[in-house]
């Protein structure tokens, strides 16, 4: 009997430990131009980590994002502001009213740096009220990228509301 209770408690604890009962709606956008296989692999890790988390991946390609912003190449990501990014935020469908987070990632393993920017806050991502967190990590080895991914996920969940 005791075993059953323990197993039951364990089973209850297996679900994701996030607030609320809705998955995070997140768009993760690659900002490198795709020509460097290492950069591609680096971004692939970030994207895969979000996809494996308790989240719904909102599709948004680099090309579509840049088109909405009216640019062809990415200027320095860390200098971007709410106002500059807002036009690139995808419109959401009626049955999916919120974008909870937008994650922009610029992996540059050749230059030894990864830069990222996260806009978060349910219902506020396209507004000046969104959290805007900027990251610069001058390491591109696996453990460092793994650490960065955790920080990006934490930033994406800021001000999440179910």
């Amino acid at each position, binding site marked *: 009997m005791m075993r059953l209770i323990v197993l039951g408690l364990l089973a209850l604890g297996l679900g994701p430990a996030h607030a609320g009962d809705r998955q995070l709606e997140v768009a993760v956008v690659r900002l490198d131009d795709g020509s460097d296989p290492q950069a591609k692999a680096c971004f692939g890790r970030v994207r895969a980590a979000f996809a494996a988390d308790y989240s719904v991946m909102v599709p948004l390609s680099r090309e579509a994002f840049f088109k909405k912003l009216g640019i062809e190449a990415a200027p320095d990501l860390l200098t971007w502001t709410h106002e500059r990014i807002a036009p690139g935020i995808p419109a959401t469908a009626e049955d999916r009213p919120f974008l909870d987070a937008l994650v922009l990632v610029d992996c540059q393993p050749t230059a030894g740096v990864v830069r990222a920017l996260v806009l978060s806050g349910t219902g506020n991502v396209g507004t000046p009220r969104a959290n805007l*967190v*900027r*990251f610069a990590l001058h*390491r591109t080895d696996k*453990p460092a990228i793994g650490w960065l991914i955790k*920080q990006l996920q934490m930033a994406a969940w800021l*001000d999440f509301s179910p």
Partner: protein
Amino acid sequence: MRIFLVFFLLSPAAWALSVPEPPPTPVAPNGLAVLHLNTAPLLRSEVRALDRLAKQLAKAGRPVVVAPAERHTELLTRYFEIHDPAERAKLDLGAVVQGEGAVLVIRYAPSRDNVAQRPLGVALLRPAAPHEVFWIGGMGFSEEGVGELIKLIKGVWEATALPDGPAK
């Protein structure tokens, strides 16, 4: 006039003027200096978080010295306000990273909406140029999230294994 001069020399003001600035806090070669840079008073929970951080890292064999940024306040405030990495690299961070250990800078900014959600800057600097290992601007932690701050710092400390090896 002479009496005034004697009184001045004996006064606390004269002593204050003559006391040299204290030398930088020594940091062990494998140690970490944590500088906190605040534009608002630390909350009790934040003080406790820094204490916990110091204890946990010390247990892991990394001596930690926690201190206010003091004479580096102006420079480090600018460091967190400049978002362009090229512009940040122009700042003289070598003056902050003296000695042989790494320096972690934590900046608590005033709250935006409430006390429990304060935008935060975190940076890890290493002795060799380029000094910046990581830089985070704008992260907000709730009261309950101070534990996450400790995890963040411990995690990057372990992941980057500074200052034992050069940044890759």
